[in-house]
């Protein structure tokens, strides 16, 4: 199956109620959705729960998709809201570690500051997605999933040196993007 683009999939889902398009959408988006949900929830089980819920909602309310201009932004908001609702329902807000992420970024937890954090995270998410495929996968495994260089080298059948080179390449691109983010918002 070739990678149909998201817009085409959404059209198929809306116009033809296509199961197969929805399934493809699921496989294309699941990882990204999970990473967003995990950012807010910090627990795998909760992230999975919220992501599946969001997919279910997307399917059940697929008619609403025709109004959506930018699926990337739309889905981010869907997941964020679902995650926050989930936390509120579980009444775990006080104990979850979301605050510890915020700490270094802003000591004041005003709504404005919170939005900046989310914006930066979303920006980071997109920046990572824009990395070339191999570079991106290696970066995620090493820096996010905390796998060792040896493990990743084995997995891709390359040397640890190459792994390091790819990680550095990713890091330097991402740092560039982070700088651009702050310059843009001047």
């Amino acid at each position: 199956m070739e990678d149909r683009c998201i817009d085409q999939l959404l059209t198929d889902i809306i116009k033809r109620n296509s199961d197969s398009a929805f399934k493809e959408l699921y496989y294309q988006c699941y990882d990204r959705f999970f990473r967003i949900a995990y950012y807010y929830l910090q627990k795998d089980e909760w992230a999975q729960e919220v992501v599946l819920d969001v997919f279910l909602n997307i399917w059940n309310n697929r008619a609403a998709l025709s109004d959506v201009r930018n699926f990337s932004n739309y889905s981010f908001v869907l997941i964020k809201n679902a995650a926050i609702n989930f936390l509120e329902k579980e009444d775990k807000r006080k104990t979850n570690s979301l605050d510890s992420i915020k700490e270094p970024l802003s000591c004041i937890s005003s709504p404005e500051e919170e939005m900046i954090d989310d914006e930066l995270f979303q920006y980071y998410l997109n920046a990572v997605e824009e990395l070339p495929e191999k570079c991106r996968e290696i970066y995620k495994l090493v820096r996010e999933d905390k796998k060792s260089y040896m493990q990743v080298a084995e997995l891709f059948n390359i040397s640890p040196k190459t792994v390091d080179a790819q990680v550095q390449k990713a890091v330097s691109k991402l740092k560039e993007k982070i700088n651009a983010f702050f310059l843009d918002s001047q």
Partner: protein
Amino acid sequence: MNQLPKSEKEVNELLNKLASSTHSPQGKFTADNSFDILRKRVAPSKYRLRFYQYMSAAAAIILVLGFSWMFYNVEQPISIKTIRTLAEIKEIKLPDGTQVVLDRYSSIQFPETFGDKTRDVKLLGEAYFEVTKNPAKPFVVETHSVNIKVLGTHFNVEAYKDDPNITTTLLEGSVSVTNKEQSKRLILRPNETAIYNKNVSAFTHLKDVDVENDVAWRQGILIFNSASMEDIALSLSHKFNVKIEINNAELRKHKFTARFDNQENLYEILNLLKSTGNFNYVKANNRIRIQIK
């Protein structure tokens, strides 16, 4: 309103925080493993109906006898159930109490209630059966090339669509394996295996088989007993649903004996086999290419 331009140190810290703020799903949280949960939540009857339509459309070109005949029965009044696995192993109980363990990337089809004369199921892929005894109503497993008729027994069937060989291994009881044309038949006793090759329309009858090897997949164990690279590649491509090519004829015949009982993933298995020093592999365009070193 926003922060001033950041120092190198601050940017480094920020990136570290961002990288630590999330990760990709692993293990039971992956897309594959989660899809089943989602499927159950989507209105079941609605989804299943459209699943049939999707399958019949795609099947026509790729498969000869593969799926198309499976849906021949859709128009019948009795409701037909299809259970399909992705990257997981599923245990199913049939209407007559027969227990089935369905391997990954396989599917089984059976009616909600069995008919009067026989108990018919259709299989694509691999499954292990423990059939409840009922001499009055034989249990028949239909695959793309052979039918397996049983009276009450434990056996394993391997019938993938891209494989001309259909392998039936008997643990207990008695089965007869017949090709679709009804021109060839083999009766199996316990610890025997019948391999029917549809290209040459012939059976190979193996006796004194180590049956535990053939059903070890139920525990997630993969066993290769002096198996050729070609057979290993085929088995791995079934288990992990990925195309594997071997460019070298000599390499294809090369034999391996290995046992993987740690739920190793595809790459871990390939890497372990590779460490014997005979080959290398590359991943390109969603397929794996194995080449001589």
